[in-house]
């Protein structure tokens, strides 16, 4: 089937890449009445946030370079996968494996955007079942997520429970004006917890890694507290856990939802090699690019893209030199046996009400391993997420790396074997994320650059970062006085379909 050419040579906005931020920007602009052309040189949706089938992941892995080169955009290297056996080969399309494994706080930019855009109608979420900490004793200990769970937890002494509650009250409140925090904003968090709240070391670590979801015990107190407050306020919005798990691979599916929303509002979509720009040039008035599937140059008033699709010559100058990127070792594994950390133990509670809960094990879980070299995070997706066949689990592992020569499998494999003794598939790779100062936010000439997430808390912060980038790009195009981000029309009900409830 031959492709038709585009209906127009000119668009208000061209967006390159279908990552989450790009897709949110595209949908919001189309919704605001802009004509949008959305291109992705990949054959699949999602860009850096893509969810891939098993065979796509193997192909993706094979295409990554052996070492990193650039510091202005996200890169992957040292990638490897185990071979697919006949069964995996046969079921390959039943997996949704995320290049951006992340959980979604129930309060934040992305949730707000999903609701205001009505993209929440396309994507489905579940509550994260549990968060566990791997203890010095070699056990998986569930971290109590709510007040009720803290009271039920028999491993915490009564006096520690009071201290913990006191801290949680503090962290959920307006701590900025508090005397307790005064002068200690930059103190290492662990010191603050121990000195100001008399919390014992293990409980402090639980807070740092499993409630604040920090990467290091020595993180500064104020930013950690700000993040913690948001997570604490997320608890109870949709359930007993602060976080939601996106179905079918999460970020990639959400990006597809925004792309569909954009298409519904008139956006045009082209994916694959025929959408890969062969040239991009800018003038005072417009951006011009050529793509293989259209016989004439295409112009747009603005171009929105992550830095990887923009020629370096157009990216503009950095303030200061580029800093070293932050490196992360990643693992994606599949197992057919229940990871021990997801088993609901009958000893966790002796009350009768738990009988019902015990009938099922966890389907999704976040497990943190505090180590001397930083935290190792493990995120497990079971069949309930729709991202693997029944009875199987997808295991994502990640940790910060100090050196680009470290082997991701050497570092993560020991932790994978603590989660499951017998994975049927595993893939390892290193991701290099540029520090935010290494990416110019916007060039003067009509190109809006979306900044990749640069921190070390991608698992809990990455999705909201993307949503914020999408909104910033929208603002950059419509201006501060323009129409609101996903502002509703009067006739909204008609536009979104006729919903009748029985």
């Amino acid at each position, binding site marked *: 089937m031959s492709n038709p050419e585009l209906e127009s040579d000119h668009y208000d906005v061209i967006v390159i890449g279908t990552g989450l931020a790009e897709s949110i920007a595209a949908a919001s602009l189309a919704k605001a009445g802009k004509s949008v052309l959305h291109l992705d040189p990949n054959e699949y949706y999602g860009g850096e946030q893509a969810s891939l089938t098993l065979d796509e992941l193997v192909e993706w892995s094979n295409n990554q370079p052996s070492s990193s080169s650039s510091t202005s955009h996200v890169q992957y290297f040292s990638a490897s996968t185990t071979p697919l056996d006949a069964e995996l080969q046969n079921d390959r399309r039943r997996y949704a494996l995320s290049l951006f494994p992340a959980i979604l706080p129930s309060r934040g930019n992305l949730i707000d955007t999903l609701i205001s855009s009505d993209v*929440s109608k396309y994507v*489905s979420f579940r509550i994260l079942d549990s968060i566990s900490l791997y203890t010095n004793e070699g056990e998986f200990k569930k971290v109590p997520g709510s*007040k009720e769970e803290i009271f039920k937890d028999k491993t915490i002494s009564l006096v520690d429970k009071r201290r913990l509650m006191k801290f949680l009250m503090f962290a959920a409140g307006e701590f900025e004006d508090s005397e307790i925090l005064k002068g200690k904003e930059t103190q290492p968090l662990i010191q603050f917890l121990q000195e100001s709240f008399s919390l014992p070391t293990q409980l402090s670590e639980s807070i740092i890694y499993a409630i604040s979801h920090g990467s290091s015990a020595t993180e500064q107190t104020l930013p950690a507290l700000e993040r913690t407050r948001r997570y604490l306020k997320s608890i109870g919005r949709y359930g007993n856990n602060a976080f939601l798990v996106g*179905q079918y691979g999460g970020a990639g599916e959400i990006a597809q939802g925004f792309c569909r929303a954009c*298409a519904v509002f008139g956006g045009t979509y082209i994916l694959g090699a025929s959408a890969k720009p062969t040239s991009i040039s800018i003038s005072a008035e417009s951006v011009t690019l050529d793509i293989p599937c259209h016989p004439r140059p295409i112009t747009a008033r603005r171009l929105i893209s992550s830095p990887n699709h923009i020629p370096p010559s157009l990216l503009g100058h950095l303030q200061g030199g580029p800093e070293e990127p932050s490196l992360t070792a990643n693992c994606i594994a599949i197992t057919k046996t229940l990871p021990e950390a997801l088993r609901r133990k009958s000893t966790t509670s002796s009350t009768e009400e738990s009988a019902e809960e015990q009938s*099922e094990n966890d389907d999704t879980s976040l497990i943190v391993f505090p180590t001397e070299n930083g935290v190792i995070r493990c995120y497990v997706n079971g069949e309930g997420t729709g991202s693997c066949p*029944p009875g199987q689990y997808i295991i994502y592992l990640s940790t910060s790396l100090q050196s680009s020569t470290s082997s991701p499998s050497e570092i993560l494999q020991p932790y994978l074997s603590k989660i499951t003794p017998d994975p049927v598939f595993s893939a390892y790779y290193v991701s290099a994320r540029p520090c935010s100062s290494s990416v110019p936010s916007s060039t003067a000439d009509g190109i809006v650059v979306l900044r990749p997430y640069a921190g070390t808390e991608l698992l809990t912060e990455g999705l909201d970062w993307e949503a914020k980038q999408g909104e910033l790009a929208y603002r950059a195009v419509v201006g501060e006085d323009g129409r609101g981000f996903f502002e509703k029309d009067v006739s909204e009900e008609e*536009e979104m379909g006729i919903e009748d409830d029985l």
Partner: protein
Amino acid sequence: MSEETPVKAVQVKLVLLGEAAVGKSSLVLRFCQGDFNENTSPTIGAAFLTQKCRLENRIVKFEIWDTAGQERFHSLAPMYYRNAQAAVVVYDITKAASLEKAKAWVKELQRQANANIVIALVGNKLDLVSDTSSTPAPPASAESPAEDEEDSSEEPSSTPSPAENESDDARQVSTAEAEAYAKESGLLFFEASAKTGHNVGEIFTEIAKTIPFDTISPKPTTSQSANRRSGANNGENNNVNLGEGQQAKKGGCC
């Protein structure tokens, strides 16, 4: 799962497929709103439409997804096919090439969609042929100029000549040919007219009757096989309704 409560509507996701301008949206608008608009523009603005279909023993609530134009450059996302229990693949009986595209979409469905998806092949624009002759005819004009423009860039070989008028010999796809293909591929088959409404309701009723409801998996599962989680918790209830949470109690664990 629906056996004990036959009055409750069973929700079914139905996706539309077919070449641009064959009348996908018109068919749905006819079905959902009893409406036809001669100059309907390429689909803009509707996430999906819903319409109920009453059978003897159950109510089927169709959630109908339009391609939103994403079929033009073959950029339909996997999300589009996800959990679709039915598909309507539309071609235009006055354009031979549109049946070939429909066949390609059927193949795509077999690759991407659930194994037990019910597919209906629908030849639209029956109103443009006044006879029921199954003899292929030379090219004739389509129903609106807008469509001509779109098609001319895609299928130069079948570009309708503007000089010719709508006549009895507009038909390019014989009933027998399409029916034989549908039969051999296990598809339901209809010829219909979104303009007159002829056979439109029948398409959806027949789909509703054909869907194997007893084996339908709840939304979150990956495939047709029921799983223990959804079995225990009745599937979709595990999913969070984001909108509802807006009014839920204020957060904070303390």
